[in-house]
């Protein structure tokens, strides 16, 4: 279990990294790294490896670690942005917030009873903390791409939760989930493209025409 726990801590640290990074490229890279770590996690948390698990680990690592980051990189270059200038909430405060939510996740998950085989595992707190970190990215960033990364991180958190249920979940559903994720981000990518063309910017704070007066 030691290896798995280390990986989980890495996942948590990457959350902080992404929230603290100002370069969009770094954020995307962080998410890519998280994706790869998650792929490794899938293999490491399970005692008996069977084909399905390996396959899913492979697909997940590929989609989250390679495919999606590449797509986002492309969109970023299209939008010609490098930095998250003036996030809605500054980097330090968002790091602090992340610390608070991570702590909260730890507390909350301690109230949830675990099955014997998962006793002592960091899976649940990591999952919740990553979900919350994804939320924080979504809430505190202006650039469309960073927000997509936020969504990706949120999904990563959920994936961590899913790892505890790999045996329980039918293969088809797992693949479906990953496919949906991919298509969702693909569609978001298309829209980012359109936003870029329409507004000549990827700054979503300009998207406030639809509002109540």
């Amino acid at each position: 279990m030691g290896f798995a726990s280390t990986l989980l801590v890495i996942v948590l640290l990457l959350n902080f990294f992404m929230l603290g990074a100002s370069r969009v490229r770094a954020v995307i890279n962080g998410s890519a790294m998280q994706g790869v770590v998650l792929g490794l996690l899938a293999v490491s948390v399970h005692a008996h490896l069977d084909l399905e698990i390996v396959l899913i680990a492979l697909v997940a690592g590929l989609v989250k670690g390679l495919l999606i980051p590449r797509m986002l990189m492309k969109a970023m270059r299209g939008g010609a942005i490098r930095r998250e200038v003036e996030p809605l909430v500054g980097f330090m405060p968002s790091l602090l917030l992340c610390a608070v939510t991570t702590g909260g996740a730890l507390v909350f998950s301690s109230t949830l009873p675990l099955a014997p085989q998962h006793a002592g595992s960091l899976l649940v707190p990591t999952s919740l903390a990553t979900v919350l970190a994804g939320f924080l990215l979504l809430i505190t960033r202006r650039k469309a791409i960073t927000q997509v990364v936020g969504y990706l991180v949120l999904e990563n958190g959920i994936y961590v939760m899913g790892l505890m249920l790999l045996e329980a979940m039918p293969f088809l559903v797992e693949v479906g989930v990953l496919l949906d994720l991919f298509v969702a981000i693909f569609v978001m990518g298309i829209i980012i493209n359109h936003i870029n063309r329409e507004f000549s910017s990827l700054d979503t704070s300009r998207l406030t025409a639809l509002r109540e007066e």
Partner: protein
Amino acid sequence: MLLALILVTPALAGLAFALPSGKDRAWLLPLGGALNLFLALAAIFFDAAPAAEGWLALDPLGKLFLGFGAVLFALLSIYAPAYLHLRAERPNRVMVACLLVFPGITNAVLLSHHLGLMWVALEASTLATAPMIYFNRNARSLEAVWKYLLIGSVGIALALLGSLFLAYAELHENLVASLRLEDLERIAPSLSRPWLRTAFVLTFIGYGTKMGLAPMHTWKPDAYGEAPGLVGALLAGSMTSCAFLAVLRFFHLCVAAGEAAFARELMVGFGLLSMGVAAAFMVKQHDYKRLLAYSSVEHMGILVLGMGLGGNATFGSLLHLLNNGMTKGVLFLSAANIHRAYATKSVEETRGALRLVPWSASLFLLGFIAITGSPPFGPFVSEFTILEVAVREGRYVVTALFLTFLLIIFVGMSSTVLSVVQGKPPAHLERPHRQESFLLLAPIVIFLACSLGLGLYLPPPLEALLREAAGVGVP
């Protein structure tokens, strides 16, 4: 047969993608609508057997939602070619394809007895509807679709997390972790309570986002406001009902697990909050399509409120789903006709529609009367049924809030609707400049007839189905 329900219209979508002519393509829609309706009715009447190893099955709840969705889609598909003809300047390849995929996906949601599959289908429905919202291809619709997609995806992600929690609730008790409804319902009483509760909260908020419950409703006015009226009706009627069914599936598990009380409180709370928020934004609303969106928020609130009250209100809530869907059909489509005649959604510039487009305006007016719960239209019956339970159970605060919100909504909506429908049209639009064609009106009239019919006479087979689905007998 159930598989066919999921696959036939997407297959047509493939055909639509291949067809070169936009005009011919549009006519695939009524074909798809008719096929879908035929299949759905056949499945309902002949009690189609479960398919795909029991992942797809048709229970009473499914029958109700399936039939409703099929009727709704069929009527909208009649309207669609005439509407797309009006918008001939816009390429419709993606639009038609997505429209045709849509019933297949929603059928998958309604039929699936596996919560994972249901989730996948719901997420797919979000993705399939996004291009439809972006039909107008302008900055506003782009903004709308961006918000829709992001909020919707986040919501649905939460629902996934909730589903996983549910699975863990089984695992924790050393049960086989399965997300098949039949298994879950059987072992519900022995599920781990903390996990179950958290799972319900997460899925409720997640699918509630998709339904458009406050405070997760924020995408709704934007999406409904910027999408074509046709799409608005589809979202407000069909998509929300799918999300509602998803909520219901989890709710039923809570009930089976003996954890209904907290779930009910949550639903009553969110229901009232949705009504209140909708009420606040419907007063002095300047955009009549956004008005309809807030009305949809309100009625989603009523749906979960009814479920939360329980008992006969469950029946009322399911009936309200039908009534709301039919009436929203009237409202969105007639609003679309008015929108086309005036080329603006601003209430200030839209006056005297009765003069300009008398049929659509009359239908819009009647739709408004229906949706605000006035007899003799359907929504009255269902709202009254829900209210009855609130009064009988002595929940006077709920009753008072319910009625206060309804009144505020009535005041706000009536002043907007009346000033759109009545009055003097702007001078430059004095003459009726576009004939209201039969196909643009007939579906609206049928929607209204359904809404009125359900308010005057509830066919006994339908009532039986509703009661079966609600799990309540004749009171």
